[in-house]
Structure formats: structure tokens, C-alpha cells
């Protein structure tokens, strides 16, 4: 399979990338690691006429201590995350889940920003960043804006990023060592999660994120509320599918996805240390 023809532009700076987006608008797609976009282009599900390659913008590949948060450059690769010591100390869940994405080859190329901007609710990292209450830095022709994860994902493969904007940084609030567990269910090791559930303890509260339980990554608010009222892991996890509208596909019915959400959330709550 071969993508449809397109014009290839290699961005050397973020400003250059923004200039290309302004010039080509909706016709252009940003290429980061390409682990989602290139398969879509091969299947001709995405047919951009201009591809702006951001892959060499090393200025967006970093993990830094930002004071009250950890700042992760959008082009930081999954492999960078899974081997990063600062993340290990301050945000172990992000490091651990990055190691669950795809396979070695995918993690060598795929980026955190690409995964987030792609907006696939079946991806591992978006639900984790939602549970971590992360903030996303978006740059456009008018300057920079910061959007909280709760307001970032708007629908199937849709986010608040406009066609002339680019995601540049992910900010994860610091809270020192904390308990977490990510439970991912799939048939083959390298596959997307049929359903995933991540539990993160922050301060005295526990937050739960769900993978592939609807159009966007979700917080399991019912579970969080039950835990806050002192419910056991088993009882709280019973609310995991409340308010969700998971899709049905070859891997699972919507009803089965609800079952998986409850089971995986219970396991995540029990395994969280």
C-alpha cells in the first residue's frame, strides 16, 4: 500500500512549521513519528496534499523539571519516556505506560505529542494524561495557549487544536512518588487496548482514566466519587462504565467493554501501590 501523492515539507523550526500550516491550512497534516498518520495515509483514510514533517524539531524533544510540573516536549518519543529518570522519580505512571505503547519499533518512532494530537481514545497515553490532570501547550499564529486535558479531547480523533496550530508541550503536575496501576486488555501484546483503565493516587484522592470507552479518553467520575466516600475497590469499580458509550467492533460489544471497564478498574485499584 502506498500513500496518495503529497507535497513534503520538512520543518526546521516551530515558526517554520506554523508558517507552512498558515499557508496550506486544512490541506496540511503534521507528521511527528508517523506511527498513526502513515498507516492512515497508506489506507487512504487520510489524504493530505501537504505533509509537514516535524520529526527533526529537536527543540521539542525533552523532559524538564518545570517547578510545579514536569514539562515534556511534544516530540519526545515513547522510548525517551520509558527510559527517563526524572519521570521515574516524579511521574512513574507516564514512564510505565509509555513502555506499554505498541512495540519496541513503534516506541522508537512514536511521540507523546503525536499520540495526544491524534486524539484516538484507544491510545494509552491520552487517558493517563487525563487522569494526571495534565495541561497541553498549543502554539499558533496568535501565540500560545494552555488547555487542560479535561477540555482538550472533543470527539473521535478530534481535539481543540486548530488547523493552524501545533501542540508543543505537555505539562504534568508534580506530586512526587505516587501509587498507580495501568490495566490494559488486548489479544496480542502489540495491539491497541480493547479497554484500558489507569488508576492514579494524587494526594489523598484517586483518579481513574479509561481507554477506548467512548469517543474520547474518559475519567471514571462515578468510581472516583465512590472512592472519595469510602467505598471499597470492588464496590467503586462497579461504577466504571457509568455514563460511557463505548463502541462495538470486531473485538468487543459495547456491553463487553462495560464489563472489561469494571473488571480492569477493580484490578487497577487493587494493584495500585
Amino acid at each position, binding site marked *: *500500500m*502506498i*500513500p*496518495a*501523492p*503529497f*507535497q*513534503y515539507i*520538512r520543518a526546521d523550526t516551530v515558526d517554520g512549521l506554523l508558517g507552512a500550516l498558515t499557508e496550506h491550512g486544512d490541506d496540511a497534516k503534521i*507528521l511527528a513519528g*508517523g*506511527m498513526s498518520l*502513515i*498507516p492512515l*495515509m*497508506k489506507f487512504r483514510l487520510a489524504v493530505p496534499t501537504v*505533509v509537514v*514533517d516535524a*520529526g527533526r524539531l529537536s527543540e521539542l524533544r525533552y523532559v524538564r523539571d518545570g517547578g510545579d510540573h514536569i514539562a515534556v516536549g511534544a516530540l519526545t518519543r515513547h*522510548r525517551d519516556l520509558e527510559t527517563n529518570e526524572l519521570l521515574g522519580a516524579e511521574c512513574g505512571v507516564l514512564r510505565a505506560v509509555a513502555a506499554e505503547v*505498541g*512495540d*519496541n*519499533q*513503534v516506541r*522508537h*518512532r512514536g511521540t507523546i505529542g503525536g499520540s495526544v494530537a491524534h486524539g484516538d481514545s484507544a491510545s494509552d497515553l491520552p487517558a493517563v494524561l487525563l487522569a494526571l490532570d495534565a495541561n497541553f501547550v498549543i502554539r499558533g499564529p496568535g501565540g500560545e495557549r494552555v488547555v487542560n486535558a479535561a477540555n482538550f479531547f472533543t470527539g473521535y480523533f478530534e481535539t481543540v487544536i486548530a488547523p493552524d496550530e501545533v501542540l508543543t508541550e505537555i505539562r504534568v503536575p508534580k506530586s512526587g512518588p505516587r501509587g498507580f496501576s495501568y490495566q490494559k486488555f488486548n489479544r496480542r*501484546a*502489540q495491539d491497541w487496548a480493547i479497554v484500558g483503565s489507569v488508576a492514579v493516587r494524587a494526594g489523598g484522592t484517586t483518579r481513574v482514566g479509561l481507554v477506548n470507552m467512548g469517543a474520547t479518553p474518559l475519567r471514571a467520575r462515578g468510581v472516583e466519587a465512590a472512592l472519595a466516600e469510602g467505598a471499597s475497590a470492588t464496590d467503586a469499580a462497579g461504577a466504571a462504565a457509568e455514563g460511557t458509550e463505548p463502541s462495538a467492533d470486531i473485538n468487543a460489544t459495547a456491553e463487553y467493554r462495560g464489563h472489561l471497564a469494571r473488571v480492569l478498574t477493580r484490578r487497577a485499584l487493587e494493584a495500585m501501590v
Partner: protein
Amino acid sequence: MQIGMTVNGVVHGHDVEARTLLVAYLRESCALTGTKVGCDTSSCGACTVLVDGESVKSCTMLAAQADGAAITTVEGLADGPNWHAIQTAFHEQHGLQCGYCTAGMMMAAVGFLAENPDPTDREVRLGLEGNLCRCTGYQNIVASVLAAADTMRAQ
């Protein structure tokens, strides 16, 4: 567009369409057909090569993205008549049957062993999760990688 890269130590340069995938560039422009296309959907790993030392699936990378990079394919493993340790191990441990996945399997293994020179059986299995084999049941592939790891550490 004009691109160039070093493949197995040899400098290549070609005028290609922007949509050319790295695996097509290696097979058709560089005439290095050791790298195979299996699923063509980034699942099976038969097309695995090393790009600047890291394993990638060359069916899911544009040749343009590899412009200027150093690529290693299965043809670049042996040193003249002397096989690479991973090739010897696959031969001695019977790590293949039909052989279609083998080039990608060995390249994924070489990339993995560079990152983890002394892996456990389980770590080898996780390290090769991006490569599918439909003949062997993986037992002998894992044995091959562990044997190669022993040899490479002793070298």
C-alpha cells in the same frame, strides 16, 4: 525529491517521490531485497531495519524521514564471509522455518540486544513483541536470541 542515506556503510542517493516508503526505497532503489514486506500495516515486523541504531518498521516510515540517516539491513549484518552472532544463533538453534520473518526478527533482535545485552527469556519475548512468526511458535527464536546474547557479551 532528492534524498540520500548510508545503507550498510554505503552512501546512496536517489530522486524519489515524497510518498516512497523506506522499505520500498531499500528494496527497489537500493536493490536490497533482504528486507521483507509482510503485513504492510506495521504489525508483523518483517520489514524491521535499524535507523541510526534503533529498530523501526520500514513499511511505516517515509524514505524522506530517513534522509541523512545510517541504515542497517539484514545484508549489513555479516562481515564478509563471517556471520553476525545473531545469524549463527538462528542457524544453530533452528530459529526459523519458512524464513520470511527472519530478516526482521534478526534486526529487531540486534536492536533489542543493543539496548539490553543480558536479557531474560521474558524480556526477549517482550522485546520481540512487534515481530510475528507463523511457523516456529517462537521457542527457538527466543533460544536463538538468548544464545546470541551470550556470544555477543563474550566477544
